[in-house]
């Protein structure tokens, strides 16, 4: 239990940063919006990590099964993103949709992170990589 309690500071700091970001964004008109996004995201990350550390203690970083699943999902996600890049290239080449650099980066960012999360969830439900 003591090992788990040492991670409580993240659970305290997370909401403070998150709420700080939101409050500064609302009440200080000159506060840059990107800093609001950064602070709220940072606070959310602290909360998520804090909860995981509370639940799993030191093994929150993962044991051999979860590390294996994460490595495989990263590889699958990489291939999926590669396919997405090829598809985006085709879409742009054939002028099907007008794409900007920002939209392409956004699509790739979402593809790589979402696909890794979904694939690792599917693999972890199966138990192992066969």
């Amino acid at each position: 239990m003591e090992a788990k309690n040492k991670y409580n500071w993240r659970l305290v700091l997370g909401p403070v940063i998150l709420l700080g970001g939101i409050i500064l964004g609302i009440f200080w008109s000159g506060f840059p919006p990107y800093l609001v996004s950064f602070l709220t995201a940072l606070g959310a990350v602290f909360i998520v990590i804090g909860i995981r550390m509370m639940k799993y203690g030191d093994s929150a970083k993962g044991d051999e099964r979860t590390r294996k699943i994460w490595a495989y999902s990263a590889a699958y996600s990489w291939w999926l993103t590669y396919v997405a890049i090829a598809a985006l290239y085709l879409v742009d080449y054939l002028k099907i949709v007008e794409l900007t650099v920002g939209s392409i980066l956004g699509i790739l960012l979402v593809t790589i992170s979402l696909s890794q999360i979904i694939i690792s969830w599917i693999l972890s439900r199966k138990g192992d990589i066969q």
Partner: protein
Amino acid sequence: MKTRIKELRARFGLTQEDLAKKVGVRRETILFLERGKYNPSLKLAYDIARALKAKNIEEVFIFDEE
């Protein structure tokens, strides 16, 4: 891979959580091992065999060639 983890665990009155802590893995890993859905590394198999006071790995893990 079939295992006798559940049987040996019950003999020593250990929960999945207890065994997981002893060998440094998550409870889910023990669960999937007991269901025969996860093939452990040699080190984990050895650690589990030792935690369950087995003489060797074969006493806990039954390798199924099919």
